[in-house]
């Protein structure tokens, strides 16, 4: 009886969340749902200005002033700091073995790895995973919903913004009482992230429409992360296309069982983790 109740509760909660996030609307990947585009574009211009005058110069200065070994250490440190989120979300996606390994990785790097600056876990074969609450929602069938461009934070979606809000609970920085430390850490993390993206600047420069490029890249990247790097192949052909010379729709034949999984289905997918 009790069991049944919990099941019912968790089911209705899941239903509520998916209704909230408008998971049912599935937009084609090349025309994502972006009803707030005018607002998003305004925020994007703001972010670009901020990047031109603050973030990029800071990142460039950081790369110029700090030797590579130290930068690697900083990257490891922040990666490790986000790892409680990974441990929790691996478990929430039913990947219990991965979650256990992630916990081991976190403990190992936090101790032997000197608070995460070194990465001994990778050396013993505990690979780094990328999980967060947005991906967990996606794993359980929640679609991205609207595309959002947030001021300061950059691209997001209804789903990922919800994930970000929940993620505050597993972020160690939340539990640091000192707001100065908090602010400094957030700033340092932002500069590190921007520095890692410096090499992508030249790619950005040669796009027709940078806003659309980032939107497309972000949504595809998130979809890929939800599926742990193996997203179902989208058919590139348009549905209404029926001219004779068109090739068989590139829905991958070699794994037809996989490609049928719809990302809007609320039925969980139990992927076999091959990594």
């Amino acid at each position: 009886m009790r069991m049944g109740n919990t099941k019912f509760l968790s089911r209705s909660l899941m239903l509520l969340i998916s209704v909230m996030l408008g998971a049912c609307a599935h937009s084609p990947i090349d025309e994502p749902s972006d009803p707030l585009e005018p607002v998003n574009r305004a925020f994007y211009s703001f972010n670009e200005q901020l990047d031109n005058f603050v973030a990029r110069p800071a990142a460039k200065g950081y790369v110029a002033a700090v030797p590579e070994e130290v930068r690697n250490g900083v990257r490891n440190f922040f990666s490790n700091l986000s790892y409680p989120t990974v441990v929790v979300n691996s478990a929430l996606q039913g990947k219990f073995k991965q979650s256990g390994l992630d916990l081991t990785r976190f403990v190992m790097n936090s101790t032997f790895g000197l608070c995460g600056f070194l990465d001994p876990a990778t050396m013993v074969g505990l690979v780094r995973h990328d999980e967060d609450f947005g991906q967990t929602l996606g794993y359980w069938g929640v679609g991205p919903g609207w595309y959002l461009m947030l001021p300061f934070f950059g691209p997001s979606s209804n789903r990922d913004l919800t994930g970000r809000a929940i993620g505050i609970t597993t972020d160690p920085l939340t539990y640091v009482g000192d707001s100065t430390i908090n602010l400094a850490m957030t700033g340092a993390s932002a500069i590190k992230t921007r520095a890692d993206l410096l090499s992508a600047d030249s790619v950005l420069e040669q796009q027709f429409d940078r806003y659309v490029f980032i939107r497309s890249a972000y949504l595809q990247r998130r979809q890929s992360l939800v599926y742990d790097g193996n997203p179902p192949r989208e058919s590139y052909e348009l549905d209404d296309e029926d001219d004779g010379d068109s090739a068989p729709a590139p829905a991958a034949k070699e794994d037809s069982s996989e490609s049928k999984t719809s990302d809007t289905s609320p039925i969980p997918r139990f992927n076999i983790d091959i990594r």
Partner: protein
Amino acid sequence: MKKLILLLSAALMSMTAHAAAPKAPDQVAQDATTQLLQLLTANHVKYKADSKLYYKTVNDVVVPLFDVPYIGRLVLGRNAKTATDDQRTRFQNAFKDMLIRSYANAMLDNFDSVKVSWQPLRMAADATDVTVSSTLLRTGKQPVPVGFAMRLNGTEWKIYDITVENISLVINFRSQINEEIKKNGLDSVITRMESGEYSAKPKS
């Protein structure tokens, strides 16, 4: 004697059958990459000095591996239907040249710091569409997964899309070009592409 003839003809038949079978898609992608890396290693100084020669080499060596008309249609998406034959052809070529200019320069700048490792390909015998997966390894940086979507075109496997971290080149350009066409019309987009407005400038 009869047996011998039978055996011989059987052997011959299997040989011709073998010759008719297309080169495996992963082999096509690997051979092309190897050939390009060899050319770059041998001639990169010359290529840096003479970009015309370099683009021509890329055009001769790399472009035949791509299904350019199909890519053009995929990128145009729904706009391919309303485009005239002339527009389609011009678009195809402009798009191809744009990619050559952008990616060829990136390759010229980075070829010596990049290694490619190929994942074994699993495909059904009658597959006409596969993805060949590889990983770009760069010293001191995170490895980048790169996929080549290939389709059987007649007797040859040709590439029609490249994905980097599962971000598709075709989808990226389709969504951007759709938007541009909506705003300015197809002709204007083609003209701007032909003029080289969207190509990366070589690093000086």
